[in-house]
């Protein structure tokens, strides 16, 4: 064992011990999830709504024998898992390590399957099976399928056929047939995007750049601020377009304009960068709040674990 590894192992054991002590031997503890059990209408299935430690304390205060609000073992395990995954991903910032690799493997496996399940239930069932076999799907998973939506539409045999060609790649022979659906996708994408971008972005951006270089106020007086802004916008757009010119090297007049163009682009990028920082830090703050608040129970800014609720939060209109 290297010195580094020994150090880290010691730190981790100490950390785990600290967590154990906090979870099991302090008054408040940490990392427990509560649920509120409520029987469903027919009395058989019990539904569990999320609850807080604060709800639990209030319920116990009202009725020491209550069983409505209770600790949920599976959800508490889930919370600890989520905390583990959070720390494991952060550990990558130090260096690649087994914890990160576990988190990565779980994320890849779960998320690949997640989107496949979504694709099955949200796309294939309603948009393919329900179009070709509406009766069967209605009786199986979509009881609400009625009206014009429930009519059979054999046009959907086209994507089904293309899909079968695509999956032919798995067959030992004739994998080239998969190029047909690929060609269909690429061709239609090219056609759709060509028309849409030219009609949308292209014309709209030109239209918005048509601004008067001299702006007069409602009373006919000259407005220097708005005029300068308009001149700068129009000039900047033209210079940036010059930068994108492919036919000439960046020399002479075009080169000069292109150089101004790249300045404008740099200002644009600097602004974009600076403006994004705030949102990114908020993302980190949310994760750290999850660790400190939901898991470790060190802070409680929203008062969710307090035995007495802030007055007023109970009032409902």
């Amino acid at each position, binding site marked *: 064992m290297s010195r580094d590894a020994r150090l880290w192992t010691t730190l981790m054991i100490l950390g785990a011990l600290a967590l154990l002590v906090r979870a099991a031997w302090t008054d408040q503890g940490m990392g427990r999830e509560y649920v509120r059990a409520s029987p469903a209408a027919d009395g058989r299935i019990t539904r569990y709504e999320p609850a807080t430690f604060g709800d639990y304390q209030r319920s116990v205060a009202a009725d020491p024998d209550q069983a409505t609000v209770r600790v949920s073992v599976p959800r508490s395990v889930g919370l600890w898992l989520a905390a583990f995954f959070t720390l494991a991903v952060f550990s990558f910032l130090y260096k690649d390590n087994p914890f990160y690799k576990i988190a990565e493997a779980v994320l890849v496996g779960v998320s690949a399957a997640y989107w496949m399940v979504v694709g099955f239930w949200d796309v294939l069932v309603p948009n393919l099976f329900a179009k070709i076999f509406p009766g069967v799907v209605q009786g199986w998973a979509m009881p609400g399928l009625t009206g014009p939506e429930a009519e059979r539409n054999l046009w959907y045999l086209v994507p089904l056929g293309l899909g079968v060609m695509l999956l032919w790649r798995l067959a030992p022979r004739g994998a080239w047939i998969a190029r047909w659906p690929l060609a269909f996708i690429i061709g239609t994408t090219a056609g759709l995007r060509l028309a849409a971008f030219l009609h949308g972005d292209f014309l709209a951006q030109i239209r918005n750049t048509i601004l008067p270089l001299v702006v007069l106020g409602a009373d006919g007086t000259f407005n220097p601020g708005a005029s300068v802004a308009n001149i700068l916008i129009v000039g900047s757009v033209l210079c940036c377009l010059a930068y994108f010119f492919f036919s000439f090297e960046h020399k002479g007049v075009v080169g000069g304009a292109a150089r101004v163009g790249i300045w404008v682009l740099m200002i644009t990028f600097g602004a974009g960068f600076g403006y994004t920082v705030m949102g990114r830090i908020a993302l980190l703050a949310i994760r750290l*709040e999850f660790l400190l608040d939901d898991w470790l129970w060190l802070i409680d800014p929203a008062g969710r674990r307090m035995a007495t609720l802030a007055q007023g*939060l109970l009032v409902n209109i």
Partner: protein
Amino acid sequence: MGAFLRDEWWIMLLAAASLAPLVRRFAGEGFFPALRTLDRRWIFLLMFWSVLLPIYYIGLTGQTFPEVPSALSQATFDEIERLQEGDPILLSFDYDPASEGELGPMATAFVKHAAAKGLRMYFMALWPVGAQMIDDTIARVIHTDYPELVYGQDYVNLGFKSGNEGVIKVIVTNLRELYTTDVRGTAIRDIPMMEGITNIQQMRLVINVSAGYAGTKEWVQYAVTPFPDRIRLVAGSTGVQAPLLYPYIPGQLAGLLGAIKGAAEYEKLVVDAYGGPNPDPRYLEGLRRMGPQLVAHLLIITLIVVANVLYLADRRREMRR
């Protein structure tokens, strides 16, 4: 701060211990040489502590960092401040829980300000869940701190109407064509404060809290633009769409709060004016969330400055050679 350091010594110790090797290196190798070979993981660690420590400190003590209101926030505050007791204002809450983090504090502060000024508040929403956001804010502010205000006399929730900008187009001239009841199903004619209100040109101010379409842009285009002399608008918006709204300031948009920063500045103004000596933590949510933002921003600014000092020093040395 002193009590925090005394009670939570362990976290400060942890932070100091983790950064000790960095300090030792700077002391041993000299400032510039150490900086030149700085491992970026030290930057990661600095970033970690500069977000975590403020969260911990603010979460535990409830104290927040200072905030200086910008001109836009001040303008927003002044728009409401200049109104008289009993003036009618329209509050349109066009957002959903996904943007609650940024916009909730603004909504709370707007309602607190309006209630403190004794304005008559007419709430509405262009987003389906906006009506829920209105109820939450009313419960958070009015029911708690202003229980003397009476529903239907001092404030009313007209609820959500579908149709996006179509709704605005209609209510600027005729409110009752779309709104026949409030959110509770009470007929408009039976609500005392609706007496004499036929359209929103009669509102002294429109306040819009907006997360996207339909939102502030539509209010500008379909309410302020056709009636520039009659309708005044202030807005609170998410950071993403705030830059798109700047072109409307100040002509069509009298004030704008952008993102959590704008919320914090406005909260500061409202709390200073109406929060009393010991403001309720509910009115400081934006200020609390600005804590980690502030420290992290200062860190990045420092990093950029330090990097450039290093770069210029190196270049000067090269040129001398």
